[in-house]
């Protein structure tokens, strides 16, 4: 009975892994990059100076700007600069045309010292990777649905992988390189098992983060049609009074920072959310900077916008919300300092590698059968093309995104969109290339191309901007320098991978099957 169970789980692991592997690879790679999204944004908009200014100054400048440009908006959002993100970002939301719709958002980055709109190149920066990994460039809310479905499949794949891995303890330290398929499987198991705490955390937390969207039955069962009340109870700070439709000037918000800090025994404000500015019932909600592991969704301080009176400070969040907050905080890793952030990055790469090696193994095993005949059936060829494009192609597209940032004219209209377009065009070209070239050659060519692109990034940076690697090191700008160095290292890694692939293809390695007549086993009992 146990044999049958393991086999069934192996079958499920194989198929769930294949069908969602390409998408999950993209999600994991972009999500991993998102851990350094602020640093990426800094490199992609080097004009924005990283100056340390007081929070009060920044806030006053932001308020003045919004008063001038967004007086009629229904909501203002102000993100104060912090150590990793020197930008002062303001966003405002127009009231939606129809109730229940989302109002349109506008965003602007301001110079934290002068309050003027930053004259930097228009770019999405690292935010592109962050948003892509859960929105998948699809219209709201379809991307989130798809990525959450992918997360559930990932969860199934992880658990079935654990169940299937018979020698999970015996082979814990086993990695045997230079043994063909065996090495790939050892590698897949190593990055899977050794980094399992991270994989389980990241996968389950991504389900919890969107659980209100994908599993709303409980909300409906408990609150009926009054869904708003649920959100007010989970996020008590978001409960804002309705518009009074009486005009009243918004008081200066800078003094509120100190008041909030007192409530949080010294914690800092990261974001202010102003509802109905210019109205008598305007409220200002101050959210705390993410410096703790367990994110507290409710922990905000609310003030009346006109009088400055404190309306409420939320109590300690209950256990259930704290658990949700822990999942959110762990997933986002806002609290992580530089060392831990690099560890998050390494773990994310391990997850990406786990998926990638799985896809390679899936194809490798079946390719052996067709090595002699030389003709690959359509389905295997499809998998091969998708493997190459979704892995080597995606990596190259990332480099193209960075290169586009440096090569596109600064004054180009819709520049940020064109950087993203370049990313997808490069990815599309990689699919075409993979379709036209034989598998092995396509791999080598795309890896070489990717290597060249990544090595080119710091070079093009030096040629087109004054913020080159040398300058960055001299000024101690570790984010800029780290970015150039990491691109260089990635290029070298891809070159090494291409070289290994080239060598592997030159030696004919046909593993003698253990039995002369291998018996295929399927899920169902034969009828």
């Amino acid at each position, binding site marked *: 009975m146990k044999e049958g169970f*393991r086999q069934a*789980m192996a079958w499920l692991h194989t198929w769930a892994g294949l069908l969602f592997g390409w998408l999950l690879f993209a999600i994991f790679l972009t999500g991993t990059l998102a851990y350094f999204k602020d640093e990426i944004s800094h490199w992609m908009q080097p004009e924005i100076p990283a100056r340390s200014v007081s929070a009060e100054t920044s806030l006053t400048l932001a308020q003045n700007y919004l008063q001038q440009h967004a007086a009629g908006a229904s909501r203002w959002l102000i993100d104060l600069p912090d150590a990793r993100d020197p930008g002062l970002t303001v966003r405002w939301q127009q009231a939606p045309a129809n109730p229940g719709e989302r109002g349109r958002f506008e965003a602007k980055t301001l110079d934290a010292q002068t309050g003027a709109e930053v004259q930097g190149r228009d770019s999405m920066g690292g935010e592109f990777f962050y948003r892509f990994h859960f929105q998948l460039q699809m219209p709201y809310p379809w991307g989130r649905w798809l990525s959450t479905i992918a997360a559930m499949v990932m969860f199934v794949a992880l658990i079935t992988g654990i169940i299937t891995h018979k020698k999970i303890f015996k082979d814990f330290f086993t990695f045997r390189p230079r043994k063909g398929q065996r090495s790939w499987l050892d590698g897949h198991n190593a990055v899977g098992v050794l980094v399992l705490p991270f994989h389980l955390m990241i996968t389950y937390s991504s*389900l919890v983060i969107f659980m209100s969207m994908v599993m709303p039955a*409980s909300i409906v069962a408990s609150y009926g049609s009054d869904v708003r009340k649920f959100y007010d*109870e989970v996020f008590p700070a978001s409960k804002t009074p309705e518009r009074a439709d009486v005009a009243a000037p918004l008081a200066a918000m800078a003094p509120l920072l100190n008041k909030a800090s007192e409530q949080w025994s010294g914690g800092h404000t990261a974001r202010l959310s102003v509802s109905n500015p210019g109205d008598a019932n305007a409220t200002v909600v101050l959210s705390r900077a993410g410096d703790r592991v367990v994110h507290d969704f409710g922990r905000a301080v609310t003030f009346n916008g006109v009088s400055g009176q404190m309306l409420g400070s939320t109590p300690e969040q209950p256990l259930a919300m704290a658990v949700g907050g822990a999942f959110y905080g762990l997933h986002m890793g806002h609290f992580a300092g530089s060392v831990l952030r690099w560890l998050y990055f390494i773990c994310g790469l391990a997850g990406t590698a786990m998926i990638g090696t799985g896809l390679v193994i899936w194809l490798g095993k079946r390719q*052996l059968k067709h090595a002699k005949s030389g003709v690959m059936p359509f389905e295997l060829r499809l998998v091969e093309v998708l493997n190459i494009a979704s892995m080597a192609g995606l990596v190259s597209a990332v480099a193209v995104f960075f290169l586009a940032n440096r090569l596109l004219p600064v004054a180009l209209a819709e520049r940020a969109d064109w950087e993203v377009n370049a990313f997808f065009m490069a990815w599309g070209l990689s699919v075409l290339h993979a379709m036209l070239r034989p598998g092995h050659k396509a791999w080598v060519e795309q890896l070489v191309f990717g290597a060249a692109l990544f090595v080119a990034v710091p070079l093009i940076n030096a040629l087109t901007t004054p913020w080159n690697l040398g300058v960055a090191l001299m000024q101690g700008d570790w984010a800029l320098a780290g970015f150039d160095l990491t691109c260089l290292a990635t290029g070298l890694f891809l070159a090494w991978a291409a070289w290994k692939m080239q060598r592997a293809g030159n030696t004919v390695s046909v593993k003698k099957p253990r039995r002369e007549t291998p018996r295929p*086993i399927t899920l169902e009992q034969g009828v």
Partner: protein
Amino acid sequence: MLLHMRIFIINIDRLGFGFSAGRFSFQGRNMKGKLATLPMSYRLAVTSRVLAAVFGGYLVAALASVTLTLWLPLSRAEAVVTGMTISFLVYLVAVLWCFACRTAWSAWVGLLVPSVILATISGAARGLGLA
């Protein structure tokens, strides 16, 4: 180029997971090096299991979430959050069941029975005025 419409056959031995052929060995197959096409009954059974896992599993998970929410002695919001958080574990077990059980029919039965039970328990909560 000949385009054969084939279903992939899993060679468990090649996967190297280290277990012998179990009770799921497929009979009546062509062993002469050519891959045999899987019968329609197999494909239907697998499709059935997948549908059961995806939709039936979601139903069981949602019902479990609602049952927990209505019965847990916590405040309304806390109960909802707890129910939703745990629901994915239930979904996982349901999916594993759909592929571990002996036949495709038992996949559906194995989901329907808990669904009915959970629906009853949730209904009882409402009836007792716990909601």
